[in-house]
């Protein structure tokens, strides 16, 4: 039992639009006075609805409840960031849940978390992250690729030229030069390795 506050409304058929003003007022009260009674009304209405959304999205009860808990914690802790002129309570709470869901799914894929939903849906932050810029360096131009190409041994160059510039197949090159296909393949591989090495030296 919640310090004598009944969690009501959870099963009510009241549409989000019909209680938007009421819910707005409760969220404002939470922001101003940490009013548990007001939060109980918001929680009672949204938590079960969030759980249904989360179950569909996450497909499992534990993750769904984690999503509900994180979302409602944000509503409680960051109520002061709610701005009724920007959207309804249901829209605000949906965007919080959507962001948490997005980051949870990325976490489940073992992604780094240094880029997150806040970067493109800044629902719960007011400012931007700091930035830095790196100097211009490294320069590889098509002409330089040309020079690197010129540096290749003659036999390798002939194979590369035929394949990448004339667009011939390795078999055609083998026939034309009267050499085994295997030789064409190994010359191509060696030439590409060499070019790759030159590019790396450059970078």
């Amino acid at each position, binding site marked *: 039992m919640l310090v004598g506050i009944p969690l009501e409304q959870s099963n009510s058929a009241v549409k989000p639009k019909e209680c938007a003003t009421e819910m707005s007022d409760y969220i404002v009260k939470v922001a101003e006075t940490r009013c548990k009674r007001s939060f109980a009304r918001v929680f009672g209405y949204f938590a079960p609805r969030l759980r249904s959304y989360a179950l569909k999205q996450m497909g499992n009860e534990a993750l769904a409840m984690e999503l509900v808990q994180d979302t*409602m914690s944000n509503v409680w802790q960051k109520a002061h960031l709610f701005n009724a002129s920007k959207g309804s309570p249901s829209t605000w709470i949906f965007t919080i849940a959507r962001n948490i869901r*997005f980051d949870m799914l990325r976490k489940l894929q073992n992604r780094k978390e240094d880029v997150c939903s806040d970067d*493109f849906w800044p629902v719960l932050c007011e400012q931007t992250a700091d*930035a830095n810029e790196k*100097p211009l360096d490294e320069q590889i131009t098509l002409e330089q*690729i040309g020079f690197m*190409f010129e540096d290749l041994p003659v036999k390798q160059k002939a194979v590369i030229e035929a394949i990448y510039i004339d667009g011939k197949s390795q078999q055609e090159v083998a026939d034309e030069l009267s050499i085994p296909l295997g030789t064409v393949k190994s010359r191509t591989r060696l030439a590409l390795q060499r070019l790759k090495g030159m590019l790396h030296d450059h970078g």
Partner: protein
Amino acid sequence: MARFHPEPEHLLQFAQGSLALSESLIIAAHCDMCTRCQQIVHQHTSILSAEIFDFPVTGEPDPARFDSMFEHITQLPPLKGKIAPTPAQTSIELDGKRFPLPLTLQRILCKTGSWSGLVGKLWQAPVDLDTTGLATFIYMGRGGTVPEHTHRGTEYTLVLDGEFCDELNRYRTGDFISMSHEHIHSPHSDSLDGCLVFSVLDQPLHFTSGLARLLNPFSHLFFR
């Protein structure tokens, strides 16, 4: 005013949160520059939220679980929103010129690597998003061209400053361009200050003509 926008379906998926990170970023950046798409996303978001919360709830868990969750949450202290400092850099400086960035891309400048020259007056800086796709800033100097190429996967490009054209169209600041394997093109820029774009690519480009074909085996080096 942008003339090219993401597909309506794409904007809906963005609002739902069902796009990949890199796609979400580039659409958010386009919305920073395009009030039309910003409004569409806003509408989608409010319709989605009404739909999602608008149903009689069935199959509730043990009410005690919600009770204890409520207890736990209301013990938590209020938190200030993340108030990060104003970004040190809100623009990219290239070639002595300053290119202002949309807010979304300012936030990822710190993930941006160093600039390197590609072919013909073309520069790029990769953005490390830790995703399978690649994200890069690309700068075409005046008269710069990208050798003719096609795309193995899908490439989204947002024009941040200046303009460029290809065989199909002329693209201006704010335009959002989607290119797939059906498109073969060779973009070039003739605007005075060149053209800065942000590009998201799920696989390397495939060059289709001349000496540039030689770049194909290395395109993963360039566009990484």
